[in-house]
């Protein structure tokens, strides 16, 4: 088995889970992972050391571009909302669902920061390396993401009124 094949065998499932958290759709996640791994295969000989940062970077960037393209296509003249729609998530669905829904309102980059930091357990420095930006930029994105989750009506109810 080649080095690349070994890497795919070992890492595919984990990458697929990460991709799902970014895309929120299993078919799209599989497509995203295959695209990223295909690109990694093309550049395999140029990758020094651990391929993970490179592969995660492709996944994050590819997802961001898909996200931008879908956004352009579906809502060409509007901006993504800055906050939730005001529904009382705790009444309609459970706390977890409220949080999951709120995560879905994050921008592609903010979602990538959250997933890499809280799911992949990467340090902010590692996240910055994967996303190709400064640690300060990651902190800023993460801060905005968390603020957005916290100001969400559903989350505020969950973390404030009920506790």
């Amino acid at each position, binding site marked *: 088995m080649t080095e690349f094949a070994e890497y795919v065998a070992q890492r595919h499932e984990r990458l697929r889970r990460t991709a*799902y958290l970014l895309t929120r759709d299993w078919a799209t996640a599989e497509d995203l992972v295959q695209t990223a791994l*295909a690109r990694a295969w093309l550049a395999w000989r140029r990758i020094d050391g651990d391929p993970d940062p490179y592969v995660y970077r*492709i996944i994050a960037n590819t997802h961001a571009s898909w996200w931008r393209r879908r956004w352009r296509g579906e809502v060409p003249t509007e901006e993504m909302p800055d906050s939730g729609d005001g529904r009382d998530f705790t009444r309609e669905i459970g706390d977890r669902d409220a949080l999951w829904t709120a995560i879905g309102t994050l921008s592609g980059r903010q979602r990538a920061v959250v997933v890499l930091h809280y799911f992949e357990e990467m340090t902010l420095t590692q996240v910055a390396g994967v996303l190709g930006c400064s640690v300060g930029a990651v902190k800023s994105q993460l801060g905005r993401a968390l603020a957005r989750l916290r100001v969400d009506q559903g989350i505020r109810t969950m973390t404030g009124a009920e506790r």
Partner: protein
Amino acid sequence: MNQTEHDLRELLAERSTGASGGGARLEEILARGRGMRRRRWAAGGTLAAVVAALVLTPPLLSGGPARDGVIAARVGEPDSQTRGEGVRLAGLRSESTGKVERLTFTPKSERASYRVNCAAGSRAFVRYGDQVDAGVCGEDRQGQEWTAFGHFDGLTVGVPVTVEVFTVPTTIKDPPDESSEGFDEALADAVRRPALWEIAVHDGGISDAACSPDICLDSGSRPAAKGERNLAGLPDGHQVAGGHVTRINEKHTFRGTVEGEARVYVRCEGEDLHAFIWAGRAVLAKSVPCGAKPALWEFVANGPTEVTVAVVRRDRLPRGSDFTSDLQAASKEANRLLSGLRPEAGYWHVALQQLDEPKPSAG
């Protein structure tokens, strides 16, 4: 620990275990990788090959002598190779390599195609979202200057799209892979230098027509399928004499037959070269520094015509001499200069073009 962060960690772990992937599909991944490698320029290469074959077949313009590798075509009506070409959506010209340009167009259908026209020895990168194409401009086996083609799929009608494009010399080693990261890496490593190139985006398909005559020096230029002019807005023309030269500091003479308006282009890109163009062998007609745009001399003649061209390093020109405005003095200086210089390696290109249409009266 912040409760929200705790919830976040648990939620992400929980939600990501929802479905079985059925294991890695290595063959699919490899097939996809091979497809990426092939896909980018396969369409362009095929189209260009077909176009080259078709273009070489039609008779040359009236009065134009048939020459191997010299392309000329009918002017006016769209011919077979351009029939699939849609209306031009956008286009831009750049005078620098290593500098990214952004082109915005509004799709009229779900598919648009692009063509990058650049001189031999250039590599073009085009990025649309996560799609990155990279191709080389140069000459194919038919002698035609190569144009890099590609297409954008999945467009939404009426929704503006911005693509990024830049060129670099092909001398860069280990070209980056065709990915968004590769695009950024190549751009970061690129050095800006003068060089003329252009990109045109057309609805649907695209052909190699309408390359500006100051870029496609020896393949000739024609209107696009919809009658659109070349991006430079220059009169179309075709080469009757010319070629690539690999030495500087010596004169090279080119002969061809022209009828009416004609022009000589000397492409010696860079900031360190200077071009001399003589009408015949003795009368200096043009003395200009080389740059992104080719040196140009326009003239009118009927019958056999001879032009002589020389390129020298700019730092060899005597300081204080006027080599551009006083052609009489420059002619003597140029002859004296060339007699004292030894030939050196250097790459430049000359094209004696017959205009296929009159120049605009204003110009």
